[in-house]
Every structure is written in C-alpha cells, then in structure tokens.
C-alpha cells in the first residue's frame, strides 16, 4: 500500500474508496473503543456492535467479490453493457452533431462550458446514445472543445480494483472488530485463519503488483515476455519442421530417436544429450535452429518464471476467498438459525 500511496496509483490514496473505507473502519474502531474495546465479546450489551460490525464486514466481503464478478463479466462477454451497442451510422450522426455544437460554441453563440454540456447531453439523448457515450466539455485557448467518450457505465476495472483493495483492508479491520481475533470455536478459528490468509495474500498481491511490473520489465532483456513466448513457439515449430524434413530425407532417420521426436513434438527444450546428438549429426540449418530454439526457449522460461512470481499469489488468494465467502454464508446461517 505504501508503494501504491507513493506512486499515486489507481488504488493509492487518491481513490475515494480509500477514504470511505477507512472512515467506516475508523468508525467501527471508535465505536468499539467507546464500548470498552471488548472486541469480539458476546456480552448482551455488545450484541448490537457485534451484529453491526458483522453485517458491515459481510457487505465489505460481498463488495470485494463484485470485483471478481465485474472482471469475469467482461472477459466472458456477458456484461449487460454488451447489449448497448450503437449502430455505426447512428454513432456518426452523433459525432457530426457534436462537432456542429462545438463549432457553434466557438462562433457567435459563444456558449459557456455548462451550456455546451447541457446541449451536448441533449444531443446524446435525441440520438439514443446516452447509454453508450458521455461528453466532456473543456475550455481551451481555441474555444470550447466537445469530446464524446465511452460511457464506461459500470466503471473501469482499475476503479473496481481500488475499491477491492481498500475495502479489503477495511474488511480486515472490521473482522477484528467483530471477532476480536477469538478462536474459541471451530467456526471462529477457520473464519479468522481464512480471513488472515485472504487479506494477507491480498496485501502481498498489492505489493507485488506495485513493484513487480518494474522489476519484471528489468528482467526483460532483448525480448519482452510476449515476444519470448511468440518466438519460443515459432522456433519450436520451425525446428520440428526442419528436423522432420531432415529425418524424412537422406541420412537423418537414425539420429532422431523416439525420445527426441517426442521432445520435438511436445515443443519442449532439448536436454543436453539430445542437443549434443542433434548437433553431431544434423545439417547446419537444423543445428542453427536448435541453438536458437534453446536460447529463446530458455529466455521464455526465465521470463515466465519471473512473471509467475508476481502473479502466483492469486493461487492462494482466489480459492481461499471463495472458501471464506462460503464460510461466511454458513456462519450467517448459523447465527440466524441459532
């Protein structure tokens, strides 16, 4: 978080969620302290506090899950926003009308920014584009500028990530306010353990995603991650084809045994002995391809491992989050039932 704060990233202190989440958490702490700081106590006079912090923590967890839902919705193409596509002809009419407005604003009409924005919004409504586009009106030295931008109705994912990060931190505080860290029961134990793991892995994730990209960029020497993958596949295919052509031609059949053939088909890197055998017998073209393949393949694997270091935390965070949500539901059901 510190790095996020320092860099002013989307999930840094500039996010409104940072302030709201901390206000909620601070309120919970303040209220708890006012009640004698008996966090997690089940005394009769603590019930309201217990339930309130519990429900707010649950709401925070549900809100955290929305980030995952939002991401999945767009990756899979089943967000309702996909239904809002405007035909191109209609889009062009809107663009032209907004251009006309901009001209008017710079001409005799001399519209203020506010008036121009009102007119622009009306244009969007008239053309049925208000769910697809929004307008930004700026005052520039050349006059008013009207720009049509995508509506971004449910918000950019980076904003959702900011909400996810800060409400996650707030959730950690609320969980403590609610449970006091008590592990007297099995449910309490598992809730606390899972919460700690989820929130802890999340914090690790924030740190990795803040510093990791710069570190990963420095790991990329001649090839980027994407280039290394593309070239790895390319040279694997070319080597396979060249080796096959050689094996099918004269003199190559004996040098390519079943093991080497399997390795080539699978696109794996050759072992030292396999490479030695190939270099000893293969024609120049196959040798050169084999060497290039080894170099590029090794580089791809190195970069893949480096990338894995900044993404592996999700293997802990995501499944445990699902487990925690399920356990919270069970916990709520248990509290309501008993």
């Amino acid at each position, binding site marked *: 978080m510190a790095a996020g704060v320092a860099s002013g990233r989307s999930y840094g202190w500039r996010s409104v969620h940072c302030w709201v989440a901390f206000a909620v958490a601070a309120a919970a702490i303040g209220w708890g302290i006012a009640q004698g700081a008996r966090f997690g106590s089940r005394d009769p006079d603590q019930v309201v506090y217990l339930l309130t912090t519990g429900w707010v923590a649950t709401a925070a967890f549900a809100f955290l899950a929305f980030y995952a839902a939002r991401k999945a919705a767009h990756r899979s*193409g089943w967000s309702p926003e996909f239904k809002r596509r405007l035909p191109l002809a209609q889009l062009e009419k809107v663009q032209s009308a907004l251009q006309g407005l901009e*001209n008017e604003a710079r001409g005799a009409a001399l519209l203020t920014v506010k008036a121009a924005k009102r007119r622009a919004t009306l244009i969007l409504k008239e053309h049925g584009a208000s769910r697809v586009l929004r307008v930004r009106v700026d005052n520039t030295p050349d006059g008013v500028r009207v720009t049509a931008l995508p509506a*971004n109705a449910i918000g950019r*994912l980076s904003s959702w990530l900011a909400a996810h990060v800060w409400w996650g931190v707030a959730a950690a505080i609320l969980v403590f306010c609610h449970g006091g860290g008590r592990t007297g029961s099995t449910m309490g134990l598992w809730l606390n353990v899972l919460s700690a793991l989820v929130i802890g892995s999340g914090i690790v994730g924030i740190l990795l*995603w803040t510093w990791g990209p710069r570190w990963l960029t420095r790991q990329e020497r001649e090839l980027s991650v994407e280039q290394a993958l593309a070239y790895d596949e390319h040279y694997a295919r070319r080597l396979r084809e060249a080796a096959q052509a050689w094996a099918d031609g004269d003199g190559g059949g004996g040098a390519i045994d079943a093991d080497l053939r399997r390795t080539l088909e699978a696109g794996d890197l050759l072992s030292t002995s396999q490479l030695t055998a190939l270099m000893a017998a293969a024609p120049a073209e196959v040798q050169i391809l084999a060497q290039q393949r080894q170099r590029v393949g090794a580089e791809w694997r190195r970069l893949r491992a480096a990338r894995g270091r900044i993404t592996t935390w999700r293997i802990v965070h995501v499944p445990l989050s699902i487990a925690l949500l399920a356990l919270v539901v069970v916990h709520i059901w248990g509290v309501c039932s008993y």
Partner: protein
Amino acid sequence: MVDAQAPPQKILGAVLGLGLFEGLDDDVRDELAYELGLSLGTVALAADKPQRPAYAEVRAFEDGEALVHQGDASTWFCVVLRGSVQSVVFGGAEGEREHRVYQPGEWFGETSALSHHPALSTCRGVGSGAVLAIEQRLFRRFYGDDEDFQERIDEVYKKDHLALHLLAATFLRDLDPKSVLRVTEQAELVRLEADDELFDQDDDVERFYLVRSGALKVVHTNDDGGSRVLAFYRGNSSFGEHSLVMQGATWPGAAIAETEVDLVALPIAVLKRVAIAHERTMTRAGNLLLAEAAELAGQIHDQAPEQAPGRDEVHVMVDRQSFKGGEALVIELDKCVRCNVCVESCVAVHDDRIPRISKMGTRVAQEHTLLTACYHCDIPGCMDKCGYGAIRRTPQGQIQFEYDNCVGCAQCIDGCPYGVIRLVEPFDPGANREAFDRHWLTSIPFFGRLFGSGTPAKGTPPTEVTNVGGEDKPVGGKTIKCDLCAGLPFEACVYNCPTAAIGRRAPETLFGNRVGTHGGAMFGGGA
C-alpha cells in the same frame, strides 16, 4: 439544375453535362457514370454480392441542413446540382462568418478529399436542393488521372479555398481573412514526383510551403557525409515559417519528395509584409520558431549524444510510428502486470474471437510499449488503397472496416505503415455455433435478456464481389484491426485493465521535454 427526384437518366445526363466534367477523358466519365448508376439503381451488383456503397451519389438537402460540419473528418467532394449551399467558418476574431455561397455547378470539399484535412467550414443548404457527392477515392483517381479535371479543381482551390486552408495552419491562424486573401493571390501550386528535390540544404528560404497531399522529408547532411532526417511533412503541414523571424534564414536540409506531392508555395516576401502588420501572429511565430531553432541547433551543431534524438525515437516517430499516425495504444510497463486481460477483453468483444491488438508491439525506451493496434491515422494509408468501399471514416476521424465489403485483397495491409491489419478467415457463424449460441445465462427467465439475445452477428459472407469497373474478385479472407469498440459504451482493453496501464496517447508525448509541444511542427504537424 437537376432534382434528386428526377429520372436517373436525366440526373446522369445533367451531372455529366456539368462544366467540371465536360471534355474529360472517357474513362473518367464512364467511371463516374457507373458509380452514379450504382447509387441511382440503373446499374446493379449481382444479388448474391455485397451491396457496397457507390462512390458517387446524389444527396438532397433541406433548408439549413448541414451537409458537413467544420471539423468533421469528411471524405466527400461535393458539387452543387440544385439550390445553394452556404459555407460558414467558425472561430477566429469574428466567431462565425460566411465564407461564400455555392451555386449549381460549383463545388467544395476537395481539400478534405485530397489531404484528409477535417472539413474547413460548415456547409449547409440554403433552401432545398441537391449535391453530387463523390467519395475521396474516386475523386483522387480523377484528380490524378485527368489533367483537365486537376486544372479546374486547382483553379477554384487557389481562388476560393486556399485562404481557408491557410487559416487552418497554426502559424497563420490569427491573420484576418482579407490579409490571407492577399497572400493567396501570389500563391503557386507545385507538384513533385517521388524523389524530386524541392530545395537543397543551405538554400535561402524564399518560399513558405503548405503540403496539400503526399509527403516529403527534410534531410540534413553533415560535413562528414552522414545524413539525418530532420522532419517529415505530410498533408496539411507547413514549413518555412522560421524565415519570418530570422534574417537570412536558410534551409537546414534538402527537401525530397517521398511520394507524389502537391504543395502550395507562397513567396516569403509577400507573407512578411502581411504578417508584420499582425503583432500577434509574429509573436506566436517567433515563440514557436525560437523554440524549434534551439532544438534544431542542438541536434545539428552540438550533436551531444544525450541531446540528439535517440535511434529509438527516430525509428519510432519517423520510420515506424508517427509519420502519419494518430493516437497510439500504449502500455506503461511500470504498471502492467502482464495479466493479458486487455487481449482477452478484446476477444470477448468480437464475434470471431480474434483479438484486434497485439502486445508484441514496439518497445519505447524501457517504460512503454506501443501496441500493435490501429492508430486511426490522420492520413489513412489503408483507406487510400482499398478499392472495395470496405474502409470508411467517421466524422471524428476513426477508421472503420466494413466487414461485409472486404474481399481480402490485402491492399490495405500494404498501405498500412504500422502492420496493424490482419487477414483472417471469413467468420462463418455456421461453423462456430458455440461462439454465438445462446449463453446459458441468457436462458434465465426474465433476467436472461440482460445478457444478450444470442443472435449471430453476421451472415456467411459471399465468395465474390465486384469492384469499381466491374472486375470480379474472389474473397480471400477478411481484414481486421482495432475498431475502438465502436458503438459499445467502452473501449474494452482500456476499460478492463486492472492497473490502468493501457491507454491512448499521441506518440510524441512519450518522449517528454525533448519533443514537448513543438515536436508536432518538427515532425510534420504544421497545421
């Protein structure tokens, strides 16, 4: 005069009888007749072929109706057939003024059609009437092939439209229209073939130039024989302003045409007399040019390695990226976690499940990657190459591919300097039922409609199409490129990046203070 409702033959006869088209080559007249016939219905493409738009059509207008707005990325050349069209210019000291009124037989839009410049004025109908609209590809063919046509267009351009075109140049924007008109009387239209030299290094600056179409480069040769490209100038760029504020100014390099180039040349002496009377113009020119001169001096004379443009910058900006480009899709590597959600989102938006962007791109220094994604260029090489009406431009200048009209000839791929266009197999929904069948979510009662209707986006494309001139070509595939998710309420890759690492930027902004706000002029943006 001709009515848009008149019988097609009468319209055709009236159009071909216009002064602009009289006496032209038969090929040109036949081509115009064919395209007009397509739009009027006297010529038809076969029923099983995509009904591509005609490149010439008659458009009716009503009183006050805007045919084109000033600033629109228009690509149509219009000839008034009936009624009148008023041309109004917005901006400047007056705010809004009438430029002129076009009567039947007169025309407008040739500057946009030739140089891809946004419309110079708003043209709206006075009373009802009709215009003949010719799409820029057809117009440029006529302009290039027929000398008589070219001469007539140039004559009117010089008399009526050059003044507007000059006002679009940053340098001359503050001049009053009367002064600009005086200047244009001395203008000369210059045409160069590829590799022709316009002027040599160290020649005295005697003329100011405005590029109408084409491109040329300015090359500086060092004492040791090495050379460096200082700038590219393309359509709507201007150069030579520095001589207005510098005594005895000379050209820092030789200007060589990269393609066929059409230029407007204005004597500097005339420009000086007019500009001196306008203090604001001189101040703006002076500030602009002093900054450029300092930068240029540093590049040529000091040659300090850390100050001269790096190899990457020249390669990216001049050779690869900024030559003709618009805004680039850029990834900030210090934020990118390589999650690939941008590419996956692009896949989700398109029915054929092929991404329109590639993260391979071009690495700019250590911090940024310019993605392989359409720049929506100011001067689209792809559109200039397409002969099937498959590439068009929105008023905001976005380049859109008409999927159904594409025959896969791949000429656009040749025309694109950035390699952002791909040729893929035509999308056949019948062969990919899983891709568009109703998602199980759409089957949920009541709520299912929130997730789409599950209808396929496109039908099976036909296998042949007729191009201009009637020649049949087989469909070899379909070209695709980034379409900015046109029509959707988001730009998928930008919208779904969790760390806001990806976004659109002008390429020159990637190089910080070295280029700064004056880089546009240095690297080809005088207008």
